[in-house]
């Protein structure tokens, strides 16, 4: 499983890529693998305001629907519309083509409360019972 070092991670298995006061968000390699074949994605609208912890979308596998939560707060400035027709991009490329939204951060310091790759790897190991 792949957890790039330049990303930040939440306990709900989202990743955050920070660029100035903007953040790109998606779900991790571990999350996509746990879900299995992703067949449907629901995304927010550009302009939506998200507080930390808000559900901003739904990722559905064949078996189940899972909420995706904002790891940090902000205003939605971009949405990956391509996922609506190709939700399987999340399985194939969770950190690339599988990105979900971009936020303009309301408080960039919130990023500091997220995990780095090694701390996240520990969490994943724990969840997998390793």
């Amino acid at each position, binding site marked *: 499983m792949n957890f790039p070092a330049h990303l930040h991670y939440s306990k709900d298995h989202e990743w955050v890529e920070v660029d100035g006061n903007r953040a790109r968000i998606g779900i991790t390699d571990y999350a996509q693998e746990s879900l*299995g*074949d992703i*067949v*449907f994605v629901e995304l927010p609208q550009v302009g939506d305001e998200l507080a930390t912890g808000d559900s901003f979308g739904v990722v559905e*596998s*064949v*078996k189940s*629907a899972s909420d995706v939560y904002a790891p940090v707060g902000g205003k939605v400035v971009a949405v990956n519309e391509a996922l*609506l027709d190709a939700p399987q991009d999340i399985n194939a490329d969770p950190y690339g083509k599988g990105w979900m939204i971009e936020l303009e951060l309301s408080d960039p310091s919130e990023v500091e409360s997220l995990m780095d790759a090694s701390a996240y790897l520990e969490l994943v190991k724990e969840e997998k019972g390793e």
Partner: protein
Amino acid sequence: MADLKKTPLYGEHVAAGAKMVEFGGWLMPVQYSSIIEEHQRVRNCAGLFDVSHMGEITIKGPDALALVQKLLTNDADRATGDRVIYSPMCYPDGGVVDDLLVYPRGEGEYLLVVNAGNIDKDFAWIQENASGFRVEVSNISAATAQLALQGPRALEILRPLTRVDLASLGYYRWTEGQVLGVHCLISRTGYTGEDGFELYFEAAAAPTMWRNILAAGREAGLVPAGLGARDTLRLEAALPLYGHELGPDISPLEAGLHRFVRLEKGEFNGREALAAQREAGVRRQLVGLTMIDRGIPRPEYPVLAAGKEIGYVTSGSLAPTLGQNIALALVAAGTVSTGGEVEVSIRGRVNRARVVKLPFYRRPKK
């Protein structure tokens, strides 16, 4: 997950890297590679399912037929020779205890194959009903393994592994014989909408059988398939799942299983209630939906007609073969008609769906 039961093939599944999940009190493989891939493999080629979690109950004795007739809504007189029958088993109020397969095993002996999550409940119910009957009821579930080999290539894969004449075994017929040297009950049944076979044999032989059948079928494209694919396959074929389309509060007539309810056969548990339902017409009916709008209908999502709630989704999923989102729904009788539109409320949003004829998928005739 320490309290969950495991089939004799648990070790094989873990070794194969299967994703294990809880199902009806059992720890079972939901997928090995991907649900969609396994689903397509069963439709186009063949898949092998471990269904050893299913329950087996035998009824033996001079009153075995009489007891089976009392328990089931279908006519067990039709289960003769090599003929297997499917039947709901009802409570006196017409609600369903379980749905099962009945194998007649010669004079005064029946094998009932029941759902994994219902084994204990069914066994208690059958014992309770057996009072006054000269029968012996045994739960042989733990000693019995079951494999389902399903798909258009199932026959060609299984044929070289046995001397039994599988080609002339008709649909819903069974026989007995050796497969890979193991004595099996072999039936041409399944739960996928495809041709295929189900094998019942002693639990101890399960790992060898599993490995050898997979090895024998590898060249033909056989793969292990999990419960995830089993569910999408059965949903496309509109086969009911206990706890979804059937249950204590759903009658077999509401579930559309009229041809498995034989009121004319005489007394049985639930007969009066079901006769009354048939007379008055059912209150609810099971219908098929295909989504027009985006969104996947999931169990318990409300179904609406012209803005008014008329029922709920019992099973729903992406249908991999059809490339559509589909659902079975239990709705108030007379509120919908085939070809008409309804709405499914998906997380509070209303999405349009079309009422369609069942099943969603029927295998092409050869």
